[in-house]
């Protein structure tokens, strides 16, 4: 499996480490009224889709960037790769 890194081009998947669902970017506000419930959901509740899945990959054997990879869990076809920081900034997670 190859991952087409947005800045470095196609790299072997062996250079990457899989982290999990990309929703992990959306860390809850620890000061919220229902912070406990939000963190339980954040920590334990996961969808397990058959098909397209947005997930976090870490380029450990490369430039140490975090990527958001859209992968089909049935065929392993990768349809989109973005830098996680670009995704986070677009969603207003970073100043």
């Amino acid at each position, binding site marked *: 499996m190859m991952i087409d890194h947005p*800045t*470095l081009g196609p*790299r*072997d998947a*062996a*250079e990457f480490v899989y982290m999990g669902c990309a929703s992990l970017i959306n860390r809850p506000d620890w000061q919220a009224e229902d912070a406990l419930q939000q963190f339980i959901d954040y920590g334990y509740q996961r969808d397990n889709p058959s098909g397209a899945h947005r997930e976090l990959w870490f380029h*450990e*054997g*490369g*430039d*140490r*960037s975090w990527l958001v990879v859209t992968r089909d869990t049935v065929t392993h076809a990768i349809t989109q790769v973005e*830098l996680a*920081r670009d995704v986070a900034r677009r969603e207003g997670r*970073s*100043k």
Partner: protein
Amino acid sequence: MHDLVAITPLGAAEPRVDTHGPVTLSEITDTALASVAARLGQEEQARAWLGTTLGVAAPDPARVGGKDLTAFWMGPDQWMVEAPYRTHEMLAPDLARQAGGVASVTEQSDAWCRFDLAGDGLADVFERLCPADVRSFKGGEAVRTSIDHLGCFLICRTPEHFSVYGPRSSAGSLHHALLVVMRSAH
């Protein structure tokens, strides 16, 4: 006053040099290193400042460049600056002062060991060591990759001259890996 004896990453008084076949492996100890990371929201200013400091544009992803000072790309908006240690012992504080708050500068000199490989057939060596596409390198490439399970920077000065930066605390393991593969390839 302390009377400390400087030792190389491999623990000797003098840098080690090994030659096998067409390849010479040299321990390099006269390089000062400082990392430069753009501050949040100052990415463009940091890139411009680094370009002015280097005298050439700040290197693009997976590239190395420069004149007296050289820099290689480490990650988005991050570079490592290299300079001769003899003339730039204060590289990190000097750069930090010049950066004027657009980038964070960190002293890195003693965190890394550097081995240079020179000679013909270096692609035969590195294709056995790491997944980097070394046969396509023409000079000016700088990639972070894994060599013998160690996260290293592989820098192609010319196809006949590569530099490898690895963690200094694993200098012996990295040197062993390089030497074993030199003997395997040639």
